[in-house]
């Protein structure tokens, strides 16, 4: 077992895959310097810099995938997909249907997401539930270095478009770049277990669409992804002392959802609490409830999600994004209801 930081694990798995598969190429704004370790190993032809033209280079990534490459397209932050959604919404996601199943676009879109470091509402969104609304897109949101590497490998082998989101609070690289910038005077509430952890000696792809129960519990199932998992575990551990036994399920894949595993757990505990850093309405938390109701599972339900545009101030931001205190409060209410 080795130990790695989160982004280091992604890059390590990616490097492993690049060494094996010459069709994998990487591009995005500043990619050469941001992925400089890949650059010096694979050269500037496979690790390219792109102009600030997301529509062009993401669209190009989709078409390059059609034409036989396995591009990894880096978007600076998931928020910026706003300028180039068309490439995902109307192209990547639809080629397979449009071509009668004969052609797919195996492109991996890699983007940092999430908040908690004071960058404000245009730079801290999560948007995984938003992306998952579109049929044809696979959406992966790992919560640990081991998952991050394993899911990156899975993404690279998948025969359709995959969005791979890295939560910035888990990524030492992004936090250093965007948050601390060499100073020691700022603190972030970093989920340690997610930011650094053991990874397998050799990378194996993780199955896409498989959730995992991170923690068992009898009273409720807390369902989440990404850094939310660590908030949930923190809350669950504290709730233990109040004799509330909460399980924590890590979806890992937002689309497709692992319906069976989710239903099984919630059927047992009878309560689901969704922790979702993405926006609350019309997103993951809603879809999870629909899955349960469709399966005929009746349960108590609550959610702790981001409800508004994320405000800039660290104080307000902390109140806006899901955290352990908020989860505990809602969990207690859920037990009473």
């Amino acid at each position, binding site marked *: 077992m080795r130990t790695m930081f989160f982004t280091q694990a992604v890059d390590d798995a990616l490097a492993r895959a690049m060494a094996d598969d010459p069709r994998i190429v990487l591009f995005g704004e500043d990619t050469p310097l941001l992925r400089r370790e890949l650059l010096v190993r694979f050269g500037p032809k496979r690790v390219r810099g792109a102009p600030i033209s997301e529509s062009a280079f993401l669209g*190009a990534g989709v078409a390059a995938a059609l034409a036989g490459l396995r591009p990894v397209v880096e978007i600076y932050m998931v928020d910026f997909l706003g300028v180039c959604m068309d490439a995902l919404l109307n192209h990547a996601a639809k080629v397979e249907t449009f071509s009668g199943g004969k052609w797919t676009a195996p492109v991996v879109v890699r983007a940092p997401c999430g908040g908690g470091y004071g960058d404000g509402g245009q730079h801290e969104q999560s948007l995984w539930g938003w992306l998952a609304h579109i049929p044809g897109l696979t959406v992966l949101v790992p919560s640990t270095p081991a998952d991050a590497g394993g899911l990156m490998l899975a993404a690279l082998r998948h025969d359709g478009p995959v969005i791979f989101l890295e939560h910035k609070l888990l990524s030492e690289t992004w936090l250093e770049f965007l948050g601390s910038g060499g100073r020691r005077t700022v603190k972030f509430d970093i989920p340690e277990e997610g930011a650094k952890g053991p990874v397998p000696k050799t990378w194996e792809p993780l199955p896409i669409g498989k959730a995992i129960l991170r923690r068992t519990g009898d009273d409720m199932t807390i369902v989440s992804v990404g850094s939310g998992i660590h908030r949930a575990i923190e809350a669950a551990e504290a709730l233990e002392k109040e004799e509330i036994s909460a399980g924590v399920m890590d979806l890992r894949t937002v689309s497709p959802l692992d319906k069976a595993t989710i239903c099984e757990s919630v059927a047992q505990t009878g309560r689901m609490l969704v922790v979702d850093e993405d926006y609350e309405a019309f997103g993951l938390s809603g879809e999870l409830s629909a899955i349960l109701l469709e399966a005929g599972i009746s349960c108590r339900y609550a959610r702790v999600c981001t409800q508004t545009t994320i405000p800039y101030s660290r104080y307000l931001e902390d109140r806006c994004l899901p955290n352990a205190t908020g989860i505990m409060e809602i969990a207690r209410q859920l037990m009473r209801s």
Partner: protein
Amino acid sequence: MPPDLWSLYALMLKSRLLEEAVAMFWQDGLISGEMHLGTGEEAVIAGVVAHLREGDAMALDHRGTAALVMRGVDPVLLLREMLGRPDGLCGGKGGHMHLFSKEHLSASSGIVGSAGPTAAGFALASQYLRPGTVAVAFFGEGAMNQGMLLESMNLASAWNLPVLFVCKDDGWAITTASKALTGGDLNERARGLGIPASEVDGLDVSAVWEAAGSAVERARSGQGPAFLRARCVHFEGHFLGFQLIRLVRNPFKEMPKISIPLIRSLLRRGGAGLRERLSGMKTVLGAVQSTRRDPRRDRDNDPVRRARMALPSDAARLQELESQVEKEIHDALASALEEVPS
């Protein structure tokens, strides 16, 4: 090397006849929804497509049929696709705006301007997997105002991608005269994005063929992208059943439908002063007028006809060629209409 006029003419004729069949299907209601034909732009397509080889790619817009049939896609598959049949090119799931042929590395899209990024991506793959191959993007002059197309011209320049950007300039974007909403000059625009640009008469297949030939050669040899602007016409207007064309073709039938509510609104209380109202009316009438006087109404601007006239005089060869193409499309039509195998 001069172009082979006979084969260019054959390509154009085949496409024209195929699209005339499509128009018939559409008119008969066998095709629902919008239908954008490429009739009138055949010289642009043929002059470019004739230079393509195995491994070259095409990114197409909402008028992709002509390029695909000229590139060698089976017309039966195309027709069946438009009929929405499971044995169509895309299993009936794409339709005329979303035609895909993996075999021909060709992809269409109904999103204006998206041919730019798509061609850039195809060309990127060329660099790695098929050096010496190129990608072509076909789009209209209206698309030249869509950011992603401009972005991808710069991208192609920055990455030195083997892309030929072909602007089929018919002057119209649906009911809008593009000139009125397009600043500067398109060639200068392309150059300002780092792409050598040239202009050509899009009704003259030889001229297109020559211009495209040198651009494609440059791209193949690693000298990067090029931009080609070719003026052409669309006889049917924007799409089949286009209101402005109907109005001009059938004024007595169509005019009242439009003019009665128009005049009622013009006279309604509340709103702008007379001058503004009349200026609005002038805009509407202007659109009708310019459609009436439009070059697309003039059969002299038919590129297929022009290509035919430019052929060396050889009646026997001409007749053979034409009857062969006609037979091919006729057979395709018959075959497309066969019962769906179960």
